[in-house]
């Protein structure tokens, strides 16, 4: 399963990871090799099973949607790469 550089570029775009020409080459080689090896899965007869969605066996666990105070507000704000008046300053989203 060989990926073209264009396909890798598209994947990088979806994954929001910037790549240069050299990296595109390397990733295209690496990813193609792995996908090749993974194609072995096509041999398995999966007609009789459903996808394994649950590992531990627990069914949807819910709790009450009750608001509570957070005691880590200051610590979280301190993590913002750029802060202004307690807000996280980012590039324009519009």
């Amino acid at each position: 399963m060989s990926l073209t550089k264009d396909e890798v570029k598209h994947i990088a775009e979806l994954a929001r990871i910037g790549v240069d020409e050299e990296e595109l080459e390397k990733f295209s080689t690496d990813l193609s090799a792995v996908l090749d090896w993974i194609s072995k899965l096509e041999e398995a007869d999966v007609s009789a099973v459903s996808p394994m969605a649950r590992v531990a066996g627990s069914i949807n666990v819910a709790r009450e949607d009750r608001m509570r105070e957070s005691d880590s507000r200051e610590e979280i704000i301190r993590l913002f790469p750029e802060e202004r008046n307690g807000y996280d300053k980012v590039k324009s989203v519009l």
Partner: protein
Amino acid sequence: MIRELHEKLINKEITAQQLAEEYLARIKEKNPQINAYLTITEELALEQARKVDEKINSGQSIGMLEGIPGAIKDNICIRGIRTTAASKILDNYIAPYDATVIERLKEAGSVFLGKTNLDEFAMGSSTENSAYGVTKNPIDLERVSGGSSGGSAATVAADLAPWALGSDTGGSIREPASFCGVVGLKPTYGRVSRHGLLAMASSLDQIGPITKTVEDAAIILSAIAGEDRMDATTAKSAGKDYEKYLTGEVQGLKIGVVREYLEGLEKEMRQSMEKAIEKFKRLGAEIVDVILPYSPYALPAYYIVQPSEVSSNLARFDGIRYGLRVDDEQESGFPADGMPKKLLETYLDSRRYGLGAEVKRRIMLGTYALSAGYYDAYYKRAQKVRALIRQDFEAAFEKVDLIFSPVAPTPAFRIGEKTSDPLKMYLEDIFSVTANIAGVPAIAVPGEEVEFEGKKLPFGFQLSAKWFDEENLLRAAHAYEIGK
């Protein structure tokens, strides 16, 4: 080892502060050589130790873990402490909360010496993918400590902590334990809360102990296991003290051996495994041949499921709310496609410069597998193969109580040996990955050392047990450890 230290504390042979200082001194001396610790939490350790000493001096009785120092893999959050996941993208990240396992260990009175090195975001089998340098194997400095919990395993092996926490998604506790000659336990999926563990693959991750002895692993498990409202995948607490199940007996236990696994090993390694099986026989266990017909598909299925979940879990590292934010002021050459250009560039640049090559590889693999047109062929199919592998285990466990296998094909390899080819590194997990795929608990125990490339090196074997049967798992491992 934990029990002995506990006795020393209650007999007042040593104070908790002296114990912590002893380890901190040894860390300062040895860590520059092996790079096991990324952050040493001296102040925190001494403060925690001081509180325990106060308790002892006031005549109060203390629990088994009180005052006992340990190390924590740096993908587990301790509030107020730098937590990097061995990535540049979190170089300056100070965790604003405690992981549930940390809360429980704090409640148990344990002392934290520091955060240990790992492959970046737990992706790797050698700790060579750390953005902060590899952790060298204390037994042979030219070799890797294994991964991704290499720092934790090396820490315990080099006496830089009596116990450590690791995490295991495809073998990341067990393989480094094997490489460093220590014990590593991956609990059943759902046994231990993942809240506060920087998520890698949510249907595979588990936190577990790395220790010198099986008893120590049991003691740590008892402290951290149990239902957590912050992790909906945790199972109801068993409320067990696992160390109480270590009878030293294996009479009546049936241990399944997958002959195919052993046949694939080189002579020295195969002989080490056969000696371990002989010992179990001598101790009174019944050895039964079992087959796991779909196990050849476990590793490829893992390399679809895991990267897919990784691609989703690592989307949050985008330079927006925390961590590294980069703007290299250059055009990335991607179309903005309806999104404000400058915002897109923030994502592209922050992730480009903050994440390492292996992390990017896996995110992209997962993105591809989950993308439109490929989801059915890859992710859905892999999840079906996963169901087949689980069925294999269910069938095997009708005949046996435990399954024996190697942990990895060889002992610790040399630094740099497998870094040029990602696939070569992935194949390290060939024996360990099935336990994560099926969700069963598994433990790595040091077997007979092997002669490899002219060196005598540790080499572990692995036992897996039925879901939620850590009692029999630990009992058998412990019996092997103390038996003759």
